[in-house]
């Protein structure tokens, strides 16, 4: 970890010093324990703030659409990218959010990020004040207790099923000893849900999303959700009710937002982690990734020359679900 951190600071410092980039997006320590937060470094002296650990969970590609103006002026942006961030960047290149030469990708092969909620549940009701890690061991401290965990037992679900931990595209690579996940592409949770009865599935889905408070944290955390005006905010026409009184609006919101990421979701899990109501959004979005693979043999964000799968047409495309 420290080695990686040192290397990141070195690369970021050099890029800023040589004025190759105007800005480096990375992580710094958050104010709460067990939280790293995105940071935006503009001057070389500040690179010491940059950190790298198992809490750097946000998908940093989400900030790229906000810097279009800066990039249009000819300035470049450095992004510290995990496997999923890099795939989101590829999607952004495919969709013309940014040009390849406008972004400097500082890639870090990732070992998966910790799921804070799983750890909190484990030590509940104790409050955690400190977390430190050493390779595969996580040590958690709080008032009058200390516990040691194996990191792999507390990874985010989406990090477990991750198919591309090593960034697919980069300018600078920080070497690490990362191995691809053993459960890569194993969507057991989805299969289990799928095997249930239809009405049971509907009940589970509606119960899950009935907790939604329409805060849109999921949308804002998602690098694929960058429309200037989201369908939920549009008032003319108003596509969907904006309150939480009508349960159908909650269901529709989740279904439509999910479907807008069809063939564009990289399964980074940012939406699920962002949700303050602990709604399992990956239960929805993962299904789309499975279908994209099953119907079109497609995975998001691998090929910078390619197009998102639903933007393409070929005569051999699957006609599943259509009338004969």
């Amino acid at each position, binding site marked *: 970890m420290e080695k990686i951190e040192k290397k990141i600071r070195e690369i970021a410092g050099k890029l800023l010093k040589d004025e190759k980039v105007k800005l480096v997006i990375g992580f710094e320590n958050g104010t709460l324990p067990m939280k790293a937060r995105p940071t935006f470094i503009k001057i070389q002296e500040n690179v010491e703030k940059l950190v790298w650990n198992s809490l750097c969970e946000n998908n940093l590609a989400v900030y790229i659409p906000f810097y279009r103006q800066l990039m249009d002026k000819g300035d470049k942006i450095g992004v510290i990218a995990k496997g999923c961030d890099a795939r989101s960047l590829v999607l952004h290149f495919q969709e013309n959010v940014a040009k390849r030469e406008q972004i400097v990708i500082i890639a870090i092969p990732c070992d998966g990020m910790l799921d804070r909620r799983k750890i909190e549940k484990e030590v509940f009701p104790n409050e955690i004040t400190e977390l430190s890690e050493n390779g595969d061991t996580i040590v958690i401290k709080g008032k009058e207790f200390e516990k040691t965990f194996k990191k792999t037992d507390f990874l985010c679900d989406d990090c477990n099923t991750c198919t591309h931990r090593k960034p697919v595209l980069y300018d600078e690579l920080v070497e690490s000893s990362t191995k691809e996940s053993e459960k890569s592409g194993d969507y057991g949770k989805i299969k289990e*849900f799928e095997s249930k009865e239809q009405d049971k*599935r*509907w009940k589970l889905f509606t119960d899950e999303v009935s907790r939604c408070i329409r805060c849109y944290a999921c949308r804002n955390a998602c690098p694929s959700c960058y429309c200037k005006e989201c369908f939920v905010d549009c008032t003319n026409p108003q596509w969907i009710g904006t309150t939480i009184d009508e349960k*159908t609006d909650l269901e529709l919101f989740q279904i439509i937002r999910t479907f807008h990421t069809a063939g564009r979701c990289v399964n980074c899990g940012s939406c699920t982690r962002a949700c303050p109501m602990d709604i399992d959004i990956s239960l929805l979005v993962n299904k789309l990734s499975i*279908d994209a693979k099953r119907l079109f043999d497609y995975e998001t964000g691998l090929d910078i020359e390619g197009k998102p799968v639903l933007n393409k047409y070929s005569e051999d495309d699957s006609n599943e*679900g259509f009338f004969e």
Partner: protein
Amino acid sequence: MLKSLLEYLGLEKGRLQLAWLSSAEAERFVKIAKETIELVRKLGPAKKLVKKKFATERHRKTQKNNEK
């Protein structure tokens, strides 16, 4: 994919129907329309993804109008 997602979430199989049609395919259109009606009859009125509050309010209004 949309159909697959909705059915995965528990919407009745066949509630959403999709067809590729061109304006020159009149016969096919009739055939598909008939089949769709058949299917929908079998499934009955939709209970899922229906706006309950809005629907009842409008329902009440039309009922009132009819009474007048």
